[in-house]
């Protein structure tokens, strides 16, 4: 309001002074120099809410991580480090029960909320209750199998599980499940969670910053938390978290115009980024977590003529894909792809060739599939010839009137459309015809059971997207491709097994992984599961993608973290 009245008052004055305004240009430097005390962060998706449990996307979780903290974080190497806890509980230090059914966290004694009250174990227990009771809590997977969360004393939290948990760290580790202040959220349990607008917009936290002003879907203004545990931190008195626009212009604001200090998630063509970085104002950062861009090969028949009762349905194996069910075709499709070219054209420093669905951490990364790194058109052609898929008059291979003609979909994103075009041409060289389709992300990644274009419905032959797993343990992620996860009308298409593969060997391995505690053995089983997926080419991994962000050269202390919120160490950022 003040701005408006001020503007009106000054409007006439300015019009009069317009002719002699050159003066002012000299008075105020044309490009404001980086402000010593003020940090400016740019996310091209604006934050909608600051309560990660009710967030609508990663951007909300990351914005909230400047305020709210979990008990432990993953650092930039993927190692778990204590945040609000004294240390990481293990079986050795007695924090994890020998039967792997409970974990006990010790809280630091010196933590204050930004309103000056102390953090207690009751806050932690409350936060767990909050998520377990809220309808549609985002972090529900983190609290899977939790039987009880109890505050043993002011600084001790005991979490017990209903089943044996070889990896008991998911509750309260990482920015997706932080600790809320009980006093603030006490009236927001259950169905009332969504009505607590004030709390969701201005949560009180223990992190380096506190919320001054929150404009949903636009901008957040933070100030330093006066009660932050480390003296002298954060180095900035205030911070802005601006949202909106697109990735390319976000990169420009840091790299070329220097208006912002940090920009997030810059999936832009590599030459565009290089050109911007050449302006010298900032630097592009890349960090590799577990993101893998992959092709998903439909094992069921997606013929539109089958209608809703048959199209892309597994039907107990009774509806195989006319040609993608043939392992030879899948293998040839994978061999024909020059992954290095895909990286060079679309990803640059933000991607590496990979042949695995689980590319990291190193102990889980299989080395059995490296032969995919080199393209081999001749071998692919030989395989197809041998399998009886012979070129027809139009150059497209066919067998028994089945043509190798693929409908290939992905979400709308210029880099993905480039990758699609490249793959189409590579497949043309082995006599496979491809029709491309791109679908708006809100539709493709949405789970509206009424939409034909979701990745779960998979009404085409091949689709491409990126997926990863939270933290460093791939168990839940790999369990996504067991038979019972095949999407279909009986589970409202709520399955993660979008290729619709069903392998008894794989299901057995998944059960074994869930019951194995020893790390070395877990790694061996996980690798084997990865190999089953990849060597049968149900999934064709293409690119191991980095998180790609940019920082201004004046901003120091940034350690880009692919395992947790990118703003995980914002307290250490300085000029």
């Amino acid at each position: 309001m003040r701005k408006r009245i001020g503007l009106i008052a000054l409007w006439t004055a300015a019009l009069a002074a317009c002719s002699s305004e050159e003066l002012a240009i000299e008075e105020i430097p044309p490009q404001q120099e980086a402000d010593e005390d003020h940090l400016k962060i740019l996310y091209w998706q604006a934050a909608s809410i600051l309560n990660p449990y009710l967030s609508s996307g990663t951007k909300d979780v990351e914005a909230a991580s400047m305020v709210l903290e979990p008990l432990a974080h993953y650092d930039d190497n993927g190692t778990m480090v204590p945040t609000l806890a004294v240390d990481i509980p293990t079986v050795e230090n007695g924090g994890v029960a020998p039967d792997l059914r409970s974990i006990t966290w010790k809280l630091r004694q010196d933590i204050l909320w930004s309103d000056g009250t102390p953090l207690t174990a009751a806050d932690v227990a409350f936060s767990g209750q909050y998520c377990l009771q809220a309808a549609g809590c985002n972090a529900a997977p983190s609290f899977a199998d939790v039987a009880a969360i109890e505050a043993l004393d002011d600084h001790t939290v005991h979490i017990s599980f209903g089943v044996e948990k070889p990896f008991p760290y998911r509750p309260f580790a990482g920015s997706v499940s932080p600790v809320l202040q009980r006093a603030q959220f006490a009236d927001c349990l259950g169905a009332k969670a969504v009505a607590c607008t004030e709390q969701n917009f201005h949560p009180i936290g223990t992190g380096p910053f506190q919320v001054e002003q929150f404009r949903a879907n636009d901008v957040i203004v933070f100030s330093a938390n006066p009660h932050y545990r480390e003296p002298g931190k954060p180095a900035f008195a205030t911070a802005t978290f601006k949202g909106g626009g697109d990735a390319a212009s976000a990169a420009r604001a840091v790299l070329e115009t220097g208006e912002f200090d940090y920009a997030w998630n810059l999936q832009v063509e590599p030459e565009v980024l290089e050109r911007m970085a050449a302006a010298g104002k900032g630097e592009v950062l890349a960090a590799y977590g577990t993101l893998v861009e992959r092709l998903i090969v439909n094992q069921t028949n997606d013929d539109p003529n089958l209608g809703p009762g048959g199209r892309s349905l597994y039907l107990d194996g009774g509806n195989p894909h006319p040609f993608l069910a043939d392992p030879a075709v899948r293998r040839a499709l994978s061999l024909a792809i020059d992954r290095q070219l895909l990286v060079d054209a679309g990803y640059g420093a933000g991607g590496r060739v990979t042949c695995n669905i689980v590319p990291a951490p190193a102990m889980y990364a299989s080395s059995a599939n490296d032969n995919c790194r080199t393209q081999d058109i001749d071998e692919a052609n030989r395989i197809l010839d041998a399998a009886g898929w012979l070129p027809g008059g139009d150059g497209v291979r066919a067998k028994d009137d089945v043509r190798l003609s693929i409908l290939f979909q992905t979400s709308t994103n210029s880099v993905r459309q480039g990758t699609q075009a490249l793959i189409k041409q590579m497949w043309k060289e082995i006599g496979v015809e491809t029709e491309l389709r791109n679908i708006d992300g809100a539709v493709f990644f949405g789970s509206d059971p009424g939409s034909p274009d979701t990745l779960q419905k998979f009404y085409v032959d091949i689709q491409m997207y990126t997926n990863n797993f939270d933290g460093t343990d791939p168990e839940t992620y790999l369990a996504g491709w067991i038979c019972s996860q095949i999407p279909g009308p009986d589970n409202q298409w709520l399955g993660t097994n979008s290729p619709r593969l069903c392998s008894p060997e794989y299901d057995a391995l998944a059960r074994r992984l869930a019951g194995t505690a020893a790390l070395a053995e877990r790694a061996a089983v996980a690798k084997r599961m990865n190999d089953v997926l990849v060597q049968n080419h149900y999934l064709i991994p293409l690119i191991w993608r980095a998180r790609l962000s940019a920082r201004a050269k004046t901003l120091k202390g940034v350690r880009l973290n692919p395992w947790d919120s990118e703003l995980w160490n914002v307290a250490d950022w300085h000029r």
Partner: protein
Amino acid sequence: MLRYATRRLLFAVPTLLAISFVLFALLDLAPNDPTGQLPLTIPPEVRAQIRDSMGLDQPFPVRYAKWLESFFVNEPLNLIEEMFDVQIGDSSARPRVLSWATRGPVVDLIVERLPQTLWVVGLSYLVGILIALPIGIVSAYRQYSWFDQIGAFVSMVGFSVPTFFTGLLAITVFSVMLQWLPSIYDTTHEVTDLASFWVQIKQILMPVLVLALYNAAQLSRFMRSAMLDNLNLDYVRTARAKGLRERVVLLVHVLRNSMIPVVTMIALGVPTIFGGAIITEQIFRVNGLGQLLVVAIQGADIPLVQTLTFLFAVLIVLFNLVADVLYGILDPRIRYE
């Protein structure tokens, strides 16, 4: 005219109700989904719970009725309470229209966005009209002169090159190369003195001009063609023969009779001010109503999209009425009865 306006206003109520139903049905049918931006690491069954928590498990008529109640009963009641500082029933028990993405009341969001949209888009609209009318008038009066040819060229380029490109071009020149103007609009900036006013001028300049160019291009073409239609009519010759000064002939006689298509255009355009300028707001991150709408659509935030587009529909119906009344004033021969 008054009777006509009253009748139209009464007729607007069922019209708007019908529009609200069509809007709701359309948004319900659209395949975009509120869980589309969640990370894929969130499993499908949790997504289903999230959808249910938004009320998507309820049947369509129930959801529509709830929106109607919240929007037409509860929100006005809240407004009355706030304006007159009275208490009508238990206001906290009345469900408001809540956005799915922000979980905050939709009306508050819209109110928060209104100032920057009105400033940027409204100003550009005004600037556009101020540029377009003189260009249109002179182009018609001096038809096929150099001024007319250049005017035609500039306005056609202005209209056929979309704002996503002109905006980017402006940023490349003025923000990247010359470094004169900021490329990102600061919605929290407050004008308190001359220096901060200058900052405001600098940040508002590019979005306003880019949008004004686009608006002016269209309007000047309609202005020119309407003027041309009238310049050769008999009454103009009569006016000149009476010895009226050329300026009076042009600006009083011809202009007034040429305004009908222009008034339509301007009146039709006013609601679009409130609708915001989706692309321009995105490019310069003005984050007004246009950006709010596009983010809401991308995130399938149905309550927000529904409310925004419905308010938009109200303005459209209203300004069409205004245009019709203006026709009657501009041209007394037009009769509605």
